């Protein structure tokens, strides 16, 4: 039973299993309730025993004992929903606990913990599922679909026989559940538009198969607990030895017409033993653009297989340029060394100690390739070229997910760096590399970079999250965490980007978090919307000044993430202004106020 193994260490599992075997039903219910309750009191931190909601249930012998019936429906025009209601009523009448959910809202990750799953699905479009349920269908048909042993299922397919793909949505589910190892409770029935009689018959047949006296504790086990992070047997993977993570999803989430390209990237940590806390960052070990490597070889006339010796040891020039050395932006060291080799006086001039400003400006405008092109060095050797280049550094990305919400996964929000220099399109090493990993079996080396100073405060503490652009990434992790933990603390997000239509990153998720109360307040600032005046996060902060101050006075923690050059300083200035105004104090005192918050870990920055 790998499902449990991934949640508990083997020895822990053996103990639970042993215990479970000796328990009668009442005892089992009491124990699972006890553990579930306990895991809520003490947040599951590293090493702590996570709750056992689902595992405890699954550990009990199924069959004789009542099971929770989860009724799911995929509807567009409402028929399936109506039938789901009837099925639920019929089952409850027989003393079976049911839970009815629209597949549009259903959390796919709960599926593996279900017991009896009864699905009523309509077909729409041309053999497609109802639009709202597409996410679930993609999940169940995708590579992340869990094995479903111990799950029993039945499908009722609604359709219209005048369509070519009659009831195909229902058929797909039926086949898929079987393929995933679930046990079929009753045969699928395909209903035409006059579905009433066939549906009744199916409902009767299904209810017949269900076993009464459902099991409260299992049903009551808080969602998400079963998915608590694995106790960290310290992972074998690190910056030095990165984990080869599979790319699960990688799409641009900036809509059409956006002036930017910001991507949402989902990576699998399965089997890595890597864990993280919201606020941590992920290190990406990127490769240089192959085209750029070729260009450098071409421009220098050096052989790809020319040997070079690096700290790591002997390798070929191509390998070195591809994965070990930074070959985009040039360093002063490279400048100095190349000036020598090329005997170029104007370059040498720039290396003078009093030329710092000019040097930086030059380096900003001229990358390695540009310098080599302008100052060709006849007969330069591979060793000489390599010697001037610094080692390629991994890039850090704020983690945009919580393990409580997506066990074994890590999500990132990456803005692709693209720019033109000397009439040539260029991309950032890591963001550009990530942007190309859109194939089926893409792999990228990663490691977790703990970032303790940017973690969440206690569950009941209020937080104000301020971020522009990709700076919103860690807040997505925060909210996933607080949602899963049902944290009572208030949360307020200030988010800024360019355009409402295309750049409102994770829009539907924030809307959902607002409506379910995980997020208490949301303020938006868009700087390039035609009809509204340029607005930045600091403007919105000032606008809400009084309330912001009240939150701070009540002990709220401040988080600022994103652009270090402009946003962070502007936000700081805004905060000083707010505290001065509403606290009726001078700017200096306001600075002290913030400094004090910093000491109390209530003013935290993560800017880049």
């Amino acid at each position, binding site marked *: 039973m790998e499902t449990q193994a991934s949640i508990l260490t083997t020895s822990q599992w053996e103990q639970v299993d042993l215990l479970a075997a000796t328990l009668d039903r009442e005892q089992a219910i009491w124990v699972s309730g006890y553990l579930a309750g306990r895991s809520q009191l003490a947040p599951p931190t590293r090493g702590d025993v996570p709750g056992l909601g689902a595992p405890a249930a699954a550990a009990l012998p199924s069959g004789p004992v009542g099971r929770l019936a989860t009724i799911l429906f995929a509807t567009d025009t409402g028929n399936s929903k109506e039938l789901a209601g009837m099925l639920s009523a019929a089952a409850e009448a027989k003393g079976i606990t049911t839970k009815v959910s629209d597949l549009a809202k259903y959390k796919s990750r709960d599926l593996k913990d279900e017991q009896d799953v009864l699905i009523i699905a309509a077909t*729409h*479009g*041309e053999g497609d599922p109802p*639009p709202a349920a*597409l*996410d679930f269908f993609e999940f169940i048909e995708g590579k992340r679909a869990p094995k479903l042993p111990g799950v029993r299922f039945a499908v009722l397919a609604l359709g*219209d026989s*005048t*369509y070519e793909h009659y009831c195909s949505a229902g058929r797909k589910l039926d086949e898929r559940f079987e393929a995933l190892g679930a046990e079929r409770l009753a045969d699928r029935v395909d209903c035409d*538009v006059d579905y009433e009689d066939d549906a009744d018959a199916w409902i009767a047949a299904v209810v017949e198969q269900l076993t009464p006296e459902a099991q409260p504790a299992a049903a009551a086990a808080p969602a998400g607990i079963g998915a608590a992070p694995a106790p960290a047997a310290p992972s074998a993977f690190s910056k030095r030895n990165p984990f080869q993570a599979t790319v699960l999803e990688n*799409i*641009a*989430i*900036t*809509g*059409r017409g956006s002036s930017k390209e910001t991507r*949402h990237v989902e990576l699998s940590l399965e089997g890595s033993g890597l864990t993280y806390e919201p606020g941590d960052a992920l290190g990406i070990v990127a490769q240089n653009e192959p085209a750029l490597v070729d260009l450098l070889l071409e421009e220098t006339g050096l052989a790809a297989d020319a040997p070079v010796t690096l700290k790591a040891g002997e390798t070929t020039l191509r390998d070195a340029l591809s994965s070990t050395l930074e070959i985009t932006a040039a360093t002063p060291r490279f400048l100095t060394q190349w000036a020598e080799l090329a005997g170029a006086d104007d370059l040498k001039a720039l290396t003078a100690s009093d030329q710092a400003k000019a040097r930086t400006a030059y380096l900003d405008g001229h990358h390695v390739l540009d310098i080599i092109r302008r100052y060709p060095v006849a007969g330069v050797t591979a060793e000489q070229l390599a010697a001037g280049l610094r080692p390629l550094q991994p890039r850090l990305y704020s983690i945009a997910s919580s393990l409580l919400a997506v066990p074994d996964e890590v999500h990132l929000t990456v803005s692709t760096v693209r720019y033109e220099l000397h009439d040539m399109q260029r991309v950032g090493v890591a963001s550009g590399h990530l942007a190309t990993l859109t194939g089926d079996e893409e792999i990228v080396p990663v490691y977790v970079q703990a970032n303790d100073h940017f973690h969440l405060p206690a569950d009941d503490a209020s937080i104000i999250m301020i971020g522009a652009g990709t700076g919103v990434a860690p807040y997505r992790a925060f909210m996933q965490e607080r949602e899963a933990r049902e944290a009572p603390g208030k949360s307020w997000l200030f988010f800024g980007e360019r355009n*409402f*239509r*295309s750049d*409102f*990153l*994770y*829009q*539907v*998720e*924030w*809307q959902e978090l*607002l409506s379910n109360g995980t997020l208490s307040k*949301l303020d*938006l600032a868009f700087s390039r919307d035609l*009809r*509204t005046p340029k607005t930045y996060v600091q403007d919105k902060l000032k606008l809400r000044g009084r309330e912001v101050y009240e939150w701070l006075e009540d002990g709220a923690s401040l988080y600022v993430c994103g652009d270090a050059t402009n946003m962070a300083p502007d936000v700081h200035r805004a905060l000083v202004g707010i505290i001065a105004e509403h606290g009726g104090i001078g700017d200096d005192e306001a600075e002290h106020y913030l400094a004090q918050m910093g000491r109390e870990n209530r003013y935290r920055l993560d800017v880049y």
Partner: protein
Amino acid sequence: MATKSLPATDRSRDISQPLEKLAPEEALKVGSDYLAGSITTDLIDEITGAVDEGNNKLMKFHGIYMQDDRDIRDERRHQKLEPLYTFMLRARLPGGFCTADQWLGLDDIARKYGNDTLRLTTRQTFQYHYLEKDTLRLVMEGLRDIGIDSKAACGDVARTVMSGVNPSLSLLHKQVYEHAKITSEHAIHRTSAYEEVWFGEKPAQPRGDHEEPFYGRQYMPRKFKIGFAVPPSNDIDIYSQDLGFIAVASEGKLKGFNVTVGGGMGRTDRAPETYPRLGDVIGYIDAEQLLPTVDAVMGVQRDYGARDVRAHSRFKYTVDDKGVDWIKLAIEDRLGFELGPVKPYEFTENGDLLGWVSGDDGLEHCTLWIENGRIINHEGRPLMDGLREIAKTGKCTFRMTPNQSLTLSDIKPADRPEIEALMAEYGLDPSTKGRSALRLNSMACVALPTCHLAMAEAERYLPELITKIEGLLEPHGLTEEPITIRMTGCPNGCARPYIAEIALTGRAPGKYNLYLGAGFHGERLNKMLLENVGEEKILAALDEAFAAYAKDRTPGEHFGDFVVRTGIVPEVKEGRFFND
């Protein structure tokens, strides 16, 4: 309401019933403070480009529908972005008339907020699409400034009133148009919520029973459509109107109207209890009796129309439920007099009279055929710019036709050359040359990407399909044969498909129902020949029918009449039997 003279009738579904027995929309209307709802709050909610479902329903009464770009709905779902919500605004333009200045104003708004396009509709008005939430007030103000509103352009009220565009009988037409205008002003809702929501004008007194003397808090059970036809042209499809008035004149002067009741198109696939219905001509009234008659007929529908199931709430079902005789009695009961016997009238077609005509008022009128009513600058044919330039001259008026086209009207003979020059300059060809009679008699509804009820393409697809059909007509020598063809993206029938000789209604992407056999001037419904089929099957079926038509038709016989006579499809005698 009913008095002794009126036989008692079943009232278990109408306004006499408690709200909880009626459709949820009824409670929504009652609880909306006369259509104000919380629209104002939703308009300033910056978290979403949408408004909530209840307010969306209420905004329809203000002429506005929330939509989203369905072409990229899925793409945005993956991007974790909400659908690209935009709004459609439909103006109220009785008889489809506007001045040159008003046209300039409409054009401005379209360029500022409406994606550089205007859409002429099958009910003689225009729509904006792609309006963003935060522009709605600006658009509304813009319209107000040129004296146009969008009151009751949608919703459970009397929609924009149609009036036939028949330039050659321009004197009679002017009289009829005036009556259509008065009717519309008379029949729209009165609520001050419109001014409050859109212009921030606080009402003089809190809204109460005085607000809607005719409608009350529950308004109509569903939309209610009124139209005026000027024979011999049935361009407005009089038989598709809930309430129709057929102009009766002597010596070119308006005398009165024959009254039709109970027309409508909307239906739902595989729901036989829903069907299109042609109106019945129930009698004659003198012109003076117009408004009382409107009140009487609408009053009957308001009080007896079904309000429990919206799919059954249109007047046409009330007429069939109660029977035409009862309905007529009920109307006369309210009027306090009997309708006169129907006066003779004759219709010849339901299309537009294209090109230049000089009216009996000595003025010139030119009807331009506009494909599916889409006003936009085409590659190499800047239609929108051309009309703008023409409007700038101020030397004509604009009339939207019931077939989504446009008549440049009331042009002094002396000014005609100037207008013609501009037409030539902007490629607005008034002649029908190079276009098959089929294309000139075609209509398609908007459908994708904006209409959220669309199941298949219409406006974006019909033109290319017609090109393929022309390929079939040509060998049979039928290119010049006027045949009406209409396509809609769903069975609701916005292009009045069920009274077209050839009709296609969408079922799913690329799939349509094919209907044949309606009367050329809208006097007979058509009949479904093929269900839920793709282009190949459609073309094959048409080719077969064309071959037979070319071979066996009697002189002057229309295609629709032919397919019925020769039994290619059975005749549909009444809407109730449409699905048999």
